[in-house]
């Protein structure tokens, strides 16, 4: 039906958003314009969701995602953007990237919906649309240069979202966000360039430099990098870039600030998709290109993952700010992804992939809830208010569902990911599994105490305690658009908890295929039992 759907879902949102951002300068009244531009943005993002959903059901492209050996699907005829240095427009998707692409197209309309009545709507919704194009670009591009360009481009709309629509400390937060992630990606760029300079001349013709940015060539030619030490160094450079984005302890400190200050939609996309870019890039580039280094650095991965997991959860217990708590719980869950990869088991890697996806549904729900709480109660303090189940039953229900999913209640999406990672971890490292398992108890502790403090406990059975910030007014329940967005996310959380195989099959096929293809040989040479 559409010959090149991946290019379409990347370029169309970008083009439309640029048009919507520039046109208002030329004509139109602000009010009508805001309405028109958010309607157009929503329409475009829904169309993109329709396309990716049709891809999933095989209506477009007829792809069998569970077939690892077929490589990238939906590829286009690569054409040169900068022939002289070997940059191409080349897209494709596989079971690693497709769930992320679908997740992106899903979260964009939902985050627009949740902030349907945002201020300066003629800029807000187009920026989110721009975010969509940039994020999809990261996941689909098979050219390292284009990948990096999109990687940087995601910073722009997110930066403005925090800067313009953020909370009181938005300036500090957006600066910190920008400096951390930009510095990290420049470090990553150095690694990419080293890889670039070692691509063989034969691989590309017609370039002045004799090298190519083609991702598969770059990954395949990583063996040409002389000396194991240099390969390790490049791997570490890439890791710094990806780990900062994930984020992992000790480079996670930008995340809580950015989340607390970001508008709801910004937080949802940040937690839902942007953090996954780190894990995606790590698997796609660092692990694929340098399997030996990955295997050699398994202890480092375990340390980083464990530190993020334990530290994130531990800090959560001390948080009184709702968004900050959810942000640290993201750090904690991202730690599980490193642990899953470090197991070097198909089950563990598939669990990590599913964690990326599940967390991509649950954390937006959590942030939507936190945003709505802020919106209607004008505070984010846990404990400044008790018994919201009485005042805002819908909000309380969503909050409860999100928190339960996040702490890993069975039959919800998060459980599948956590339990598979832990099983794989046990298979690889034995009793070391006790530490992450005990951390899950900490997670339960902080969620359950917060739940008790905010949703239920009430000194007065009729009213509960209202925060000072309401100035004595009665809080309202969440509005229709917030509610509908949360209902969709909540329903998906339950759906993927009960029927995880919708995406699980392709993920586990990809993981075992990937493991056999790239990692087994490295593990044997490093003496790690497969």
């Amino acid at each position, binding site marked *: 039906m559409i010959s090149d759907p991946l290019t379409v879902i990347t370029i169309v949102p970008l083009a439309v958003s640029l048009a919507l951002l520039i046109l208002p300068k030329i004509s139109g009244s602000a009010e009508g314009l805001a309405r028109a531009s958010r309607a157009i943005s929503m329409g475009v993002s829904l169309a993109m969701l329709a396309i990716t959903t049709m891809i999933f059901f095989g209506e477009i492209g007829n792809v069998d995602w569970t077939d690892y050996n077929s490589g990238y699907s939906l590829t286009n005829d690569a054409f040169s953007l*900068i022939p002289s240095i070997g940059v191409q427009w080349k897209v494709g998707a596989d079971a690693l990237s497709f769930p992320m692409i679908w997740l992106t197209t899903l979260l964009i309309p939902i985050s627009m919906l949740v902030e349907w009545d945002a201020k300066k709507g003629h800029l807000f919704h187009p920026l989110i649309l721009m975010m969509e194009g940039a994020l999809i670009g990261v996941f689909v591009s098979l050219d390292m*240069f284009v990948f990096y360009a999109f990687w940087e481009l995601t910073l722009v709309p997110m930066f403005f979202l925090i800067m313009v629509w953020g909370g009181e400390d938005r300036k500090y937060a957006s600066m910190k966000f920008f400096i951390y992630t930009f510095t990290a990606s420049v470090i990553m760029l150095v690694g990419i360039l080293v890889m670039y*300079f070692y691509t063989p001349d034969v691989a590309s013709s017609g370039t002045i430099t004799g090298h190519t940015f083609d991702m598969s060539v770059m990954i395949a030619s990583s063996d040409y990098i002389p000396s194991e*030490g240099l390969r390790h160094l490049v791997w570490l450079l890439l890791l710094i870039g990806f780990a900062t984005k994930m984020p992992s302890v000790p480079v996670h400190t930008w995340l809580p600030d950015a989340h607390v200050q970001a508008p709801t939609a910004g937080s949802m996309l940040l937690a839902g998709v942007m953090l996954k870019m780190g894990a995606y890039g790590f698997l796609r580039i660092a692990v694929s290109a340098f399997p030996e280094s990955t295997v050699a650095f398994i202890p480092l991965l375990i340390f980083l993952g464990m530190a993020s997991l334990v530290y994130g959860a531990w800090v959560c217990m001390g948080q009184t700010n709702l968004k900050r708590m959810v942000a640290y719980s993201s750090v904690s869950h991202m730690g599980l992804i490193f642990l899953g990869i470090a197991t070097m088991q198909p089950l563990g890697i598939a669990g990590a992939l599913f964690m990326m996806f599940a967390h991509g549904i649950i954390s937006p729900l959590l942030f939507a809830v936190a945003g709505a709480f802020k919106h209607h109660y004008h505070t984010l303090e846990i404990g400044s208010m008790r018994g919201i189940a009485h005042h805002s039953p819908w909000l309380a229900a969503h909050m409860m569902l999100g928190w339960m999913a996040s702490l890993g209640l069975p039959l919800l999406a998060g459980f599948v990911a956590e339990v598979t990672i832990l099983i794989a971890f046990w298979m690889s490292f034995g009793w070391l599994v006790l530490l992450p398992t005990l951390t899950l108890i900490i997670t339960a502790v902080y969620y359950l105490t917060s739940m008790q403090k905010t949703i239920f406990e009430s000194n007065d059975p009729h009213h509960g305690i209202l925060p000072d910030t309401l100035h004595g007014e009665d809080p309202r329940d969440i509005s229709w658009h917030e509610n509908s967005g949360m209902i969709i996310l909540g329903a998906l959380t339950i759906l993927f908890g009960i029927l995880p195989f919708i995406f699980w099959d392709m993920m586990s096929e990809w993981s075992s295929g990937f493991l056999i293809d790239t990692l087994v040989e490295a593990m044997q040479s490093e003496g790690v039992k497969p």
Partner: protein
Amino acid sequence: MMPELIMLLGLIAIVVVPNLGDAKFRLPLTSVRVPVLLGGSRFDLTNDPRMPNRISNLTFSLALLSSLLLISESPSEVGGILVVDSFSRLFSTMFLAALLLVSIATTHRLPAKTNAHIPKESDSENVFDRKISILIDNRRQVDFYILLIMVGLGMTMMTMATNLFMLIVCIELASLSTYVLVAFHKEDGTGGEAGAKYFIVGSVASAIGIYGMSLLYLWSGSLDLEILRQSWLSMEGIDPFAAFGIGMMLVAFGFKVSAAPFHLAAPDAYSGAASQVSGLLATASKAMGFLALFRVLVMITVPDGSEAIWMIALGIFAIVTMTWGNLAALTSENPKRMLAYSSVAHAGYMLAAIAVVGSGISSVDQNAIILTAVSFHLFVLVLFKLGAFLVLALLETEGKGHEIEHLYGLGRRDPLIAGSMFLFVLSLAGVPPLSGFLSKLLMINGIVSTSASTGSSSSVDIVSWAESVDPLFWLAAAIVLNSALSLFYYLRIGLVMFFEEPSTEKSLKAAPSLRMAIFACALLTVLCGIGPVSEWLLDTVSSAIDSLMYE
């Protein structure tokens, strides 16, 4: 020679046209009055103070156009000391493009007062003084553009010179004009000081260079580049005359490209001059120095791919230059000085690439690629370095631009201009996919592809690999580290533009032609980084370098 002729005509037109008037010459003993047109009371059209600017714009556009059309013309020689080939044509095109941008951008710079505002006799007492000052202001227009066209003539001629003497003369023609242009900004005391400093240091550097040239003459008996090259080839060992001659010419050209430690006058000159002129110095004037380096260093002294005597020196200069430039830029509070130091740093990057040409371990093809990269970098520098200076020029129309505070909140006052400025600094920093990244990548690639293969591939740990690799590799590492360092001050400009409170909410002056120049620069900064335009430009540069290398 078409562009040069056009510029000559333009020069004459600028001198003549404002003097056209209704003067008549009465034939003796008759009452017949023959109009001679020169003198008398001027026509309204010719007396328009904006006239010189228009003539200069027209001249440069025509010259640029003809230069572009002639870019693939077959080589021809003029008088034995000039050669017109695609290499010289290409660089002429670049110089003319820079000058055209400067010329367009200066429309609003000098106070051009139209005649309509000349007060009537009855208006006030000091009518006469005001009339004089208006007249002087308007005369200055003519002076400014005459100098600009002189710069153009000197620069385009120097691209063709195959004789060292001609080369120096043309460089001096351009340089002397730029000294005056720097000092031209008389409303401000710093202009004169900057011009004087620049002139003194510049003439000392030129004197040293000319002395070096005379030593070369003493040594070979000719100043023709081809003969010098032959003598260098047939030289046994190193003749001290030749070595000192080359070394001294390095000083002169080092000043032109503002390489450390000869760069000390540059920041003063850049910050004292009008921003358009600073932009010209940082781009076209620097390119002129590099062109001279190509001619003298690469063409005379690297004929057969053996290690050149200046290689080590140039490598060390390059690292010192880029590090010094970046460190100084980090601490600058004046955006013009910051851009000046960043221009010093960029000179360092390019010198590093040229040092590799002299290493002797690179093949001729690799040399061609490196020179292509450097030339391409010089080309795109015109877009984003000049563009950044033009943004400061727009701020100067309201008397600002000398302190970082003046950039505060520019994003709120004028988002498009601030966005362009951000684009320029990102390109200066070398962020993909802008043209600054492409050119820097090509330069680094040139260095790495020459040197990295020398590292032993059998060594396992990184230390022994690092010991085995050719020291040239560290030039590439230095460029990368310096680029990372430079990000801090480039991003700072972006940050203050978007996140500091502006001192005033007033929007900037309209200045349509200046804005047009800025937007043209911004658009081309993107287009030259990605897509067909960049490809065309790179191909053209590459074939021009081939014509230089393999003639």
